[in-house]
Structure formats: structure tokens, C-alpha cells
């Protein structure tokens, strides 16, 4: 009898405790949501500005655009997309980024495979050396690289920048891939070798397919890095016709002139691609950072 009397009280107890838990966590939620909003606001501001015309942008803050009358316009995007420079820039960015991602991954994969599964003298020391190069600032290499490329008469060409990005990206890529390859089960490779497969076979048929997550996250990293790069492009590609979006936008920024309002939409467009990639492949991105930076 007493047990039955206790029951309804227990569920009320439960309700009260859950309510008080929620209330005590309210500050947490407020702070967190506030921070998240704060973080997004700058980008959001840019987005809004890109839909306003030049006069509006110059005269009032973007948040006022949400009051009547709504003054949104697609002019900026139209101008940016039809302006020769932007379209070409976008294409240039792609031309630079895609090979600039694929080639480093391939080259690094070869080396990572050797580091992970082959034995040769000085292997571990060499590996540490390669990884240590991660800290070399790109700036240190620019003058000689530029000179070298000029002497070889390929300075200012796309292949030159592909090679450059490959070289710069190798330490990180080799590091990431070697760790991943090394974690693959040894028995798998051994049984393949026992079956008579050559290293090449094992590499293309076994290692690469099994490493898709690592390759994917590396691809994302490398692509974002190359797409967003400014310095290397500025130094190596001097021809304005070959300029990627980062360079073109920078020029817009310093020019100020009548192009001011185009800046917003140009910047936003250049942001779109990385953002889309980021959201679509978020999982791999984060995983990649974790494998690369935090061990065990």
C-alpha cells in the first residue's frame, strides 16, 4: 500500500528534478548559443552585404537591411560572375587547386607507403626529418624557389605552382598518410605478398582502397590550403591572367574604387566552395586533424 502511494510522488519528483536540471543549465545554453552566433555573425554580415547595392553598403550597416524596405539585389553577384576577371579567377583557382591536391597526395602516398611498410637504412630518422620540415615557413623558401623557377624558365606557369604546392604540402601529407598506412593490419599485406603480389599491386589494390578516409581528409586539407593560398600564388604566378581568386580579391581590396561592393560577393563566392566541401565532408576533416595532431 505504501509502495503504491509512493509511486505518483516519485514521478513528480522526477519531473521537478528534470526541470531544475534544465534551468540550472540555462546559462550554459545561453552562453554557448551566444558564442556560436557571435562566431557566425561576421560571415553572415558579409553574406547580407553581398546582396545590397553599392550605395547601401557605403551608407549603412548591413543589419539595417533587415528592416523595411528590403533592398536586396543580385547586382553584385551578377557583376562578379559576368566580369571577366572573376570568372577567369575562379577557373584559375580550380586549375591550381585540383592538380595541386591530387599530385601531392599521390607523391606523398608513394613515400608514405615506403616509410610505413618497407625497411631501409635510416628510415625512421629520415621520416622524422621530413616531418620536422613542417615548421619551415614558406617565406624562407620563396626567394630561391622563385629564382630557380625563373632560371628554369617555368616561373609563372601552372605546372610550376603545382610542383610548388606539392613540395610544400609533402611533410604534412607524408606524416598523415604514413600514420594511417602503418595502422593497417600487417596480416593483410603479408598474405598479399605471399600470394605473389608485387609492391605496386599491393599499393594500388590494397593500400589505396583501404585508406580512403585518410586520403579524403588529406584531400580536403590540401584542397583548402591551396584554394585559400595567397602568398605562393602571389610570388610564383605573376601573370594577372593566371591569378586565382585570392589574389584577385586582394587586389580588389586595395583598389577601393568603384569595385568596392563587388568585394563582398566575390569574397563570398570564393568562400562558398570551401564551405560546401567542409560541410559535406566535415567528418573526414575533423578526423584528419585528429589523426594528424593527436597521437594515441
Amino acid at each position: 500500500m505504501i509502495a503504491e502511494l509512493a509511486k505518483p510522488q516519485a514521478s513528480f519528483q522526477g519531473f521537478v528534478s528534470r526541470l531544475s536540471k534544465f534551468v540550472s543549465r540555462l546559462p550554459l545554453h545561453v552562453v554557448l548559443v551566444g558564442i556560436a552566433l557571435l562566431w557566425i555573425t561576421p560571415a553572415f554580415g558579409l553574406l547580407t552585404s553581398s546582396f545590397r547595392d553599392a550605395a547601401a553598403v557605403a551608407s549603412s550597416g548591413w543589419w539595417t537591411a533587415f528592416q523595411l524596405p528590403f533592398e536586396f539585389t543580385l547586382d553584385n553577384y551578377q557583376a562578379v560572375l559576368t566580369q571577366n576577371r572573376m570568372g577567369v579567377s575562379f577557373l584559375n583557382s580550380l586549375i591550381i587547386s585540383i592538380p595541386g591536391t591530387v599530385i601531392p597526395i599521390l607523391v606523398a602516398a608513394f613515400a608514405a607507403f615506403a616509410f610505413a611498410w618497407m625497411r631501409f637504412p635510416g628510415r625512421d630518422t629520415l621520416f622524422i626529418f621530413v616531418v620536422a620540415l613542417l615548421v619551415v615557413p614558406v617565406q624562407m623558401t620563396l626567394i630561391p624557389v622563385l629564382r630557380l623557377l625563373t632560371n628554369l624558365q617555368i616561373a609563372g606557369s601552372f605546372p610550376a605552382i603545382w610542383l610548388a604546392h606539392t613540395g610544400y604540402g609533402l611533410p604534412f601529407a607524408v606524416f598523415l598518410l604514413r600514420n594511417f598506412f602503418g595502422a593497417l593490419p600487417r596480416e593483410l599485406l603479408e598474405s598479399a605478398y605471399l600470394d605473389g603480389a608485387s609492391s605496386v599491386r599491393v599499393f594500388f589494390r590494397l593500400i589505396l582502397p583501404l585508406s580512403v578516409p585518410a586520403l579524403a581528409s588529406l584531400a580536403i586539407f590540401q584542397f583548402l590550403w591551396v584554394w585559400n593560398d595567397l602568398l605562393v600564388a602571389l610570388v610564383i604566378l605573376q601573370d594577372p591572367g593566371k591569378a586565382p581568386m585570392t589574389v584577385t580579391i586582394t587586389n580588389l581590396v586595395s583598389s577601393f574604387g568603384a569595385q568596392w561592393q563587388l568585394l563582398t560577393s566575390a569574397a563570398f563566392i570564393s568562400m562558398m566552395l570551401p564551405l560546401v566541401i567542409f560541410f559535406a565532408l566535415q567528418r573526414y576533416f575533423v578526423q584528419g586533424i585528429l589523426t594528424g595532431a593527436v597521437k594515441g
Partner: protein
Amino acid sequence: MAEVRFEQVTKRFGDVTAVNNLSLEIPDKEFLVLVGPSGCGKSTILRLLSGLEEVNEGNIYIGDRLVNNVPPKDRDIAMVFQSYALYPHMSVYNNMAFGLSLRKTPKAEIERRVREAARVLGIEDLLKRKPRQLSGGQRQRVALGRAIVREPAAFLFDEPLSNLDAKLRVQTRAELSKLHQRLGTTFIYVTHDQIEAMTMASRIAVMNDGVLQQVGQPQELYERPDNLFVAGFIGSPAMNLFEVTVRGDQNQTYLDADSFRVAVPSTKVAMLLPYSGKKIIFGLRPEHIHVPEFMPPGTIAAPVQARVDVTELMGHEYYLYLLNGEKHFLARVDARTMPRPGQDIEVVFNIAHMYAFDPVTGKAITTTDG
């Protein structure tokens, strides 16, 4: 004053009821083992007691104190985790001293208690080492030491031997029993291994699906299981169970298993008569099945034909995996038997030790005069 009491405690996780209306009293100084298969709720009970989980319904008392809303740190209990959960960045000494230093115990006192515990556990040499430099067995002792220095009202153990190798496990079992005698504090111990339960416990509580099946001394659970689950769980190898029909009458009752029949001893006839013509579950432990030539004196023999499927020589006895019709069962027979797989032999059931269970409720069918 460390009696522990659960009053109608229920704990739910979403749709799943992990602990269902548990009422259990654990007197001071007892070594209670909570045993059951994975997911039966035993670990949850431990976590409810320690305060790491909160009850949905019911009350928990430690001593005379209602501790439902008391946080773990104020419940005066110590816990040894399955994976030891040592603080990896602290030395063994600091691991053991941590709890005391939080309570602002004076340094001299901490030093005394830690060294004493280390001495008892034989880990004095390890005090300066870090956990990653220790073997599994050593880490376990440190975890024990960490609990001992707190001098709590009760010790909680969550499957502490699972991560040890077999030999170490046997050794540590004995040491834990000795430790319990020496400390004289309540031990509440969770395991899925019924051998641990049988060897160490002063009382065993069997859990299944969140429900307490039976609680009692080891011998009691072994000889007089309350229900099918306890019968099948306690005792290794497990009790043989057959689905049979009760036939016959007052004068001659027997159990019909289609492919064999056994006569019911007179002492058990009365309790089975209500089931006449109906099905029951008939249970017999492997140690009560013999080969005729080596059956012990006093056996009430019920012969059964069977074919030997597999034999396992255990040294002092044979495990015979037998087949009768479609029924598989296990017998532990004298080592002098020379069984061969495929051989057709006759075994005898020592029917005096038979168990009967209601097929619907699973409860044991017992004689009213015990």
C-alpha cells in the same frame, strides 16, 4: 554502521529498465556478490549505490542515511573499477593519496595510511612509479590501495578480476577473501563469473534482466535454486535441463522425455502430482549422472541410454557430451571409464538429486516439507 539497503529501487535508461524494483538488505561486514549475465543490471546497481547514477524510484540507505541525493563524494564509499581507472599522470603514492588530500587530511596521516596499505598489498616498492610502468596485477593492487586508504563504510568492486590472466585471477581471489576478513568492512562485489561468486561470497545475489532472482548463501543457491535461471546459472558446468511430461499416478510416477523415461523418487511424487499429464522442466546436474560401473553408493539409479558425442578428459574425471534422441546433456563421470565418441552406453541418473521447474513461471517445484 555500514549496512546497505535498497528499497524498491528502479532505474530506467530510456525505454530500458535496467534495475526493476530491487529490494535488498546487505548487513554490515558482509561480502555480497552480485552475479548475473551481461546486461542483467548488476553494474547499474553498483553505480546507483556509489552515486554515479541516480535512482528513478525507490530509496537507498547507507547506514541509516538516505543517500538518494547525496553526491558520490559524500557517500563514504570506495570503488574499484574494472579497468582500475588510475590517474595516469600521478605516481602510485599520489594515486592512493588523492582522495585523502581532497579531504584535507594532514600529511602525516596520509603518509601513514598509504604506507600501511602499500605494505598490506605488497606494493611498497612501487610507490614512486607511474601507472603505465606497472603490470595489470600491480595496477589492480594500486586501485585496491586507493580504496583501502579511504577507510570507507563499504567497498564496491566492479568486475575487478576480469582483466587479469587466469592464474592471477585465482591468486587474487584468495587475497580478496583474506582482505575482507582483515578489514571487516562490507564488500559489495559485481561479477559475471559465478565461480568468483561461489568462492568468495558470504551471500550471493543473482540478477537477470534487472530483476533479483535469488539471494542467499552460496550453498543454498547451489542446492536449492529458486528458479530455472538460478539453477542454470550457478554451478559449473551448468545443470542439464529437459522438457518432460509428468505421467503416472500415486503409485508410480515417472517423467516422460519421449526418448527416455525416469522414475520419480517417492519423496518427490507429491509435489509433482498437480502436474500430472502436463509438461515440466526436469533438471539434473552433470555431477549426478554416472556410468553404472562407477556409480557412488546410495545412488537412486534411473538408467538412460545415450550415445557419446564428445569426450573431454579433465584429468580426474571425464566430461561426456551425450546424445539421447535429440536431447544433448553433459555428464561428469569417473576417469576410469573409457568412453569413445560414437559409443552407445547406458548412464544412470541419480534421481534423488532431481530438480523440477514450472515451465511457465520458471519457479522451482518444491516439496512443502522442504
